[in-house]
């Protein structure tokens, strides 16, 4: 675990110039998409293109300058990927707004709200990088952040501020703003899991009995983390939030597996997942419906609740074909949640498989960078945290894109950086800030300390301090 950076035999360069180049390209993608939306839908370049482009550029430049100042060795690819996805998402939301406005829908300011949320996200990104100079200081907050995460998950149950929307009780309303505290909770729980596992990984992996090919750890090692996990799962199930429960379960399993290097956890996790899915299928009507819609989408097209939304999304993507219908030439308003869960179907319809592949590749690269940060990180806490954050993004993208394309049963989760959703966007910007902070530490050359000659024998014996 120690000194991996020097063992690999090279030092990383800063690559801030490469980052700037990629950011310019990302801005061209974002602003170009915005202009293309105006041209496609209204036939003219949008009037506020300069103002919009200037705002987006200012946000990206602010993020870039911050990275230059306080995280000069950070990964050069992560920020441009995120900027491009966010810019593209804003343009697609703008395209939906124009259609919603023309059709007389109530809500048609998604893009503007999303831009406000992105501004807040970038402010938090900058603040995180400035205030958190060493991610290892988060390790001290292991239990605090675990507790805070659980408190945030409980918030929607409180009488005044809590609220249910679309059947899931995951929202709070404070002073006119709605917020999904679960999005922040997942980051806090990653910190808590990483901080706990890095101290107890050896005990979890080595101490304990072997039962049926699986090394079971001792109760006192597994207890706290199992409690943290169990409580959050119970809360999510009570909230009727399938997507998030799946996300937390997967996150927990990945981190436990990475920390202990025991494949047995995957077996245990797989069995638990199968059992849980069967139980949910049997006892929760909603889950049964989701399975039926997934297996036979076209039979429930007209039913209510039915698979109309999924089928419309599939029609849209099929009609889009290889290079799409062109921005403004599709019918994304036929999919009710085109602005959130189903944003990928809009992209598939109007920009085609070519764009969808590019987007999936972008997510793949984000996850690859995060896992690489975990590989080269010099401390165990940073490794586990980077793996956890990578797992969050990977699982979320898989569950959402798999659901929208009909690969797996549909569960509600936001597509990171693309979908409309303030809490998710803000939380994901913080995730990126944390990843950049870890990668700055990991890629920074190890301090040059002179080797010590061991000619002098350790003649006098040293007494051993009793540790615990």
């Amino acid at each position: 675990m120690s000194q991996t950076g020097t063992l690999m035999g090279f030092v990383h360069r800063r690559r801030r110039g490469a980052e700037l180049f990629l950011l310019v390209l990302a801005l061209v993608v974002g602003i170009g998409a915005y202009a293309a939306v105006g041209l496609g839908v209204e036939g003219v370049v949008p009037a506020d293109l300069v103002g919009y482009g200037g705002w987006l550029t200012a946000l990206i430049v602010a993020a870039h300058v911050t990275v230059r100042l306080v995280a000069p060795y950070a990964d050069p690819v992560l920020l441009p990927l995120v900027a491009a996805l966010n810019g593209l998402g804003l343009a697609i939301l703008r395209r939906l707004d124009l259609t919603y406005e023309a059709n007389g829908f109530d809500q048609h300011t998604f893009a503007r709200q999303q831009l406000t949320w992105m501004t807040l996200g970038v402010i938090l990104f900058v603040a995180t990088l400035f205030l958190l100079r060493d991610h290892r200081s988060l390790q001290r907050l292991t239990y605090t952040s675990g507790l805070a995460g659980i408190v945030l998950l409980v918030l929607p149950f409180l009488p005044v501020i809590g609220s249910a929307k679309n059947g899931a009780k995951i929202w709070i309303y404070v002073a006119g703003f709605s917020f999904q505290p679960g999005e922040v909770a997942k980051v806090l729980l990653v910190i808590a899991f990483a901080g706990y596992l890095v101290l107890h990984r050896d005990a979890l992996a080595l101490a304990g009995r072997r039962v049926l090919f699986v090394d079971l750890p001792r109760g006192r090692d597994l207890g706290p983390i199992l409690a943290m996990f169990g409580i959050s799962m119970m809360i999510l199930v009570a909230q009727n939030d399938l997507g998030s429960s799946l996300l937390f379960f997967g996150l927990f399993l990945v981190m436990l597996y990475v920390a202990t290097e025991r494949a047995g956890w995957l077996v245990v996790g797989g069995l638990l997942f199968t059992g849980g899915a069967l139980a949910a299928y049997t006892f929760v009507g909603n889950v049964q419906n989701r399975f039926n819609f997934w297996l036979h989408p076209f039979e429930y097209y007209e039913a209510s609740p039915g698979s109309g939304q999924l089928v419309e999304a599939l029609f849209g993507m099929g009609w889009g074909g290889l290079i799409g219908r062109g921005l403004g030439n599709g019918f994304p308003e036929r999919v009710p949640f085109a602005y959130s869960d189903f944003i990928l179907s809009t992209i598939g319809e109007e920009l085609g498989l070519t764009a969808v592949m590019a987007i999936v590749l972008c997510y793949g690269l984000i996850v690859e960078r995060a896992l690489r940060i975990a590989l080269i990180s010099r401390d165990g806490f940073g490794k586990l945290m980077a793996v956890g954050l990578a797992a969050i993004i990977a699982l979320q993208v898989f569950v959402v894109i798999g659901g929208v394309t009909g690969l797996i049963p549909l569960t509600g989760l936001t597509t990171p950086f693309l979908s409309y959703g303030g809490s998710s966007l803000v939380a994901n910007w913080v995730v990126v800030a944390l990843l950049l902070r870890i990668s700055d530490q990991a890629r920074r050359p190890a301090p040059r300390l002179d080797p010590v000659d061991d000619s002098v024998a350790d003649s006098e014996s040293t007494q051993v301090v009793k540790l615990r």
Partner: protein
Amino acid sequence: MSELTLFLIRVAFLAILWIFVLSAISVIRSDMFGARVPETARGGAPAPTSRKGNGKPRKPRRGAPTHLLVVEGENSGVRAELADAPLLIGRGSDAAIKLDDDYVSTRHARVAASGDEWFVEDLGSTNGTYVGPVRITQPTTIGLGVQVRVGKTILELRK
């Protein structure tokens, strides 16, 4: 707006999208292979001049630490000037700060500078070196007044 123009806009946008993705991949590629190999990893001893440069007494900046002080333990009050860095801490006779602490190894830890920052490094001691409450596994930055614990002794950087 003619059909053809819209088609060209669409194709141009998709091209930009893919140019972005491919550039990102090419940056990742160059990041993997384009890094410089440091002198120490190439084999052979590093040039002695650079080593001298590291230990050379620098002009102390205002607010920069000047000495390492034992603040707690048997040898409380013992100090060593940082100008003589790198400083060895231990029970051995060659240590810059020689401690009479049974829980300290002969060659326990080392304090050295890299750039403007001071680092403490554990030299494989029996009982470990702690910065604050954390046992360190890699060279760790220490600032003014940060407590470094070896055995039953606590040291600090002072102005």
